[in-house]
């Protein structure tokens, strides 16, 4: 029996030594592969902005963080991620607050879909995996997927294995080309063209529909509450932001948000602002002009 135990221990030791360089190569390749390096900059200490913007593509494309920072006189950074849901926003908040504590957080709340299960807003594991070498990211992935935290701490290769093929692609093809979800500027903002409007004009803005409380997912509500709780504990000023859209009006949503967050969290409702088509890329997203105008409106609201 001793012989077998010794051999197994030797085998584990060799595996332990050999898998590290592989894991290291994967982790380096996958980082270099990314065009969107916002999280890497956060961990490298290059981002310590006082104001942070969180949300989905509506926030990524809808608030010009550079403009907002200028107007507020406070450094501002946009951490919006396209196609992400509230669980993911909570993870991004946790990752940021693990590195440093911002002064203000603007959480952009989507309109009808914020608390509802939908294919367009998911937990974007793919956005976090490239940065899994950082413990804060690993913790969030372990909490929100089947990735095993302990095994990831022990094995670098296991920790990085989701990145293997993309990492390999870096060594073959180099860095990813930017697109409208990753082409971030120095403030983390992605501007959408003012020229290529994809507006559907048939939408009647004068129509309205009731917000349906029964479609809400408990996990999304829980994420919102956790963000609020963490902000309270850390002394961060949290603002919920509703951005303009050219869609039928949502009735009863502000009241529901107030119910959920209590009276102490300001809800900045801009859903009826900037209704001119020149501000919109499509019915749900502002273009670069809209994002600038939005930044101005937000700064006025916060500065009041």
């Amino acid at each position, binding site marked *: 029996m001793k012989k077998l135990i010794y051999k197994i221990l030797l085998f584990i030791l060799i595996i332990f030594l050999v898998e590290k360089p592989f894991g290291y190569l994967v982790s380096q390749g996958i980082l270099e592969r990314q065009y969107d390096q916002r999280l890497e900059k956060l961990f490298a200490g290059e981002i310590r902005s006082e104001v942070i913007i969180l949300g989905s593509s509506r926030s990524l494309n809808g608030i010009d963080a550079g403009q907002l920072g200028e107007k507020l006189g406070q450094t501002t950074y946009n951490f919006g991620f396209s196609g992400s849901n509230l669980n993911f926003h909570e993870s991004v908040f946790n990752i940021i607050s693990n590195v440093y504590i911002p002064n203000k957080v603007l959480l952009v709340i989507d309109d009808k879909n914020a608390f509802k299960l939908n294919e367009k807003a998911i937990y974007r594991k793919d956005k976090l995996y490239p940065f899994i070498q950082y413990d804060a990211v690993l913790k969030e992935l372990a909490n929100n997927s089947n990735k095993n935290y302990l095994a990831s701490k022990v094995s670098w290769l296991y920790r990085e294995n*989701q990145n293997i093929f993309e990492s390999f692609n870096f060594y073959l093809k180099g860095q990813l080309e930017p697109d409208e979800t990753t082409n971030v500027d120095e403030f983390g903002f992605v501007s959408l063209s003012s020229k290529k409007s994809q507006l559907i004009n048939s939408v009647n803005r004068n129509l309205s529909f009731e917000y349906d409380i029964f479609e809400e997912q408990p996990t999304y509500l829980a994420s919102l509450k956790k963000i609020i709780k963490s902000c309270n504990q850390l002394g961060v000023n949290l603002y919920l932001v509703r951005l303009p859209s050219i869609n039928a009006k949502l009735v009863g949503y502000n009241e529901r948000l107030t119910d959920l967050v209590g009276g102490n969290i300001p809800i900045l409702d801009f859903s009826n602002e900037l209704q001119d088509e020149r501000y919109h890329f499509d019915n749900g997203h502002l273009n670069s002009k809209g994002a600038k105008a939005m930044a101005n409106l937000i700064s006025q609201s916060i500065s009041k």
Partner: protein
Amino acid sequence: MLFNSIEFLYFFPLVVGLYFILPFRFRWLFLLLASYTFYGLANGLLLLLIVASTLIDYLAGIKMDDIDTKKGRKPFVILSLISNLGILCLFKYYNFFNDSFANLFQLLNIPYLIPSLSIALPVGISFYTFQTMSYSIDVYKGKIKAEKHLGYFALYVTYFPQLVAGPIEKASNLLPQFKTKQNFDYKRITDGLKLMTWGFFKKVVIADQISPMIKYVTDSPEQFNGFSVLLCSCLFVYQIYCDFSAYSDIAIGGAQVMGVKLMENFRRPFFAKSLSDLWSRWHISLINWFQEYIFFPLGGSKKGRRKAYRNVMIVFLVSGLWHGASYNFLIWGLLNGLVIVLTLRLTKLKSASNKKLGSFINSVWYRRFLRVKTYIIFAILGILFYTNDLNSAHLLGESLFHGWTDDIRGILMNLENERSHILYLGKSAIQVIALVLAIFILEWVHYFQEYNGSMREFVATKPALVRWLLYIGVTLIIMAFSFDQEIPFIYFQF
């Protein structure tokens, strides 16, 4: 608990270590507790079902053992069969038949008030109920004596390596092994570990990589033409083979580590030259069960050709239903039976055509042709297996014969990244290359086993450095491919 979970990585060495440390008289109890933990971690309540089944079959066996005549034993075997089939019908088939009746009544415009049940299918129910039924029938027939020790019998029903997906063991094979003291045997243990590693390779590196490709097609079947459908079907055969045979390898290897020899469940099915040959190499323990408890009692092939065909069809009908309570599986089973019956019917015609082919039928190329033909038939029938309903199966079945030129053009021209959709089924080129390499390794191992014997013995003849490099390499590959999704074994649902 899944074999491919991190928890199993802690569980198995702990159980094996304690098993060998404990005195022999306590081992059965320890293994029984370990088995209940293994099963109960997923859903503790479902353990009650196994315990109930165990108690009923144990008592029925004891009662039968006391009675000399078959007639006297009959009520008890009926009790055992009714309780096992009752559990199976309630949990697996009730909703299927109830919904079918509801649809029929709706069609006839008659009100139907019996509600469906919202109950989860207990993992492995089809395996352990079949195993215990085989015990009861064997005791009834007087082939074996009933097990008097409740602990050993409970262990036979729940032995954790093979509890949830087989192999379906006969009591005459498994029970005596629990009663034999197993000593620490270096070669047996390392052989078991190697077999488990091979199982993990097949599951993690092949089956789990194909799984999203199949899902990519079944999620929107209307988007695919003939080439992609055939590719998907061929890949599905590899997926289900690597998934299920991996489970069997891990089960057999795990049991071997503890000194228990489980039966072989797969014997390189892709070397089969006909569908009936394939079914003698695929899920062998289930096919043996069907032969022994359905085919032969019905008369087998000894009561004339027609009855033999009927019996084959009955076996495959039951096999289809065993795999799942849906029309897809039912038709899948029937079509498998039909192909085998037709092959048998055409035997005369075949021997005449073989004469015309002359010496070609003895050539390697003819053998290869037969293998590929069998594989393709099995793959196409598999459409019914991997689709969720008859509509999707029908859609993909139809697509199989359309759009081939569009697909080939799309692959060659790759306009708008069509190659990724048609050829890679949603994956990237590099992932598909890795998968093809893994399948190539699998086929090479199979080829070696078919013509040269045991791969483990072959590897054992190599220098230590080569062996260690191989083991380390395979382990690293498994670690690299074990992503955050622990994809459950497909046969868990049966």
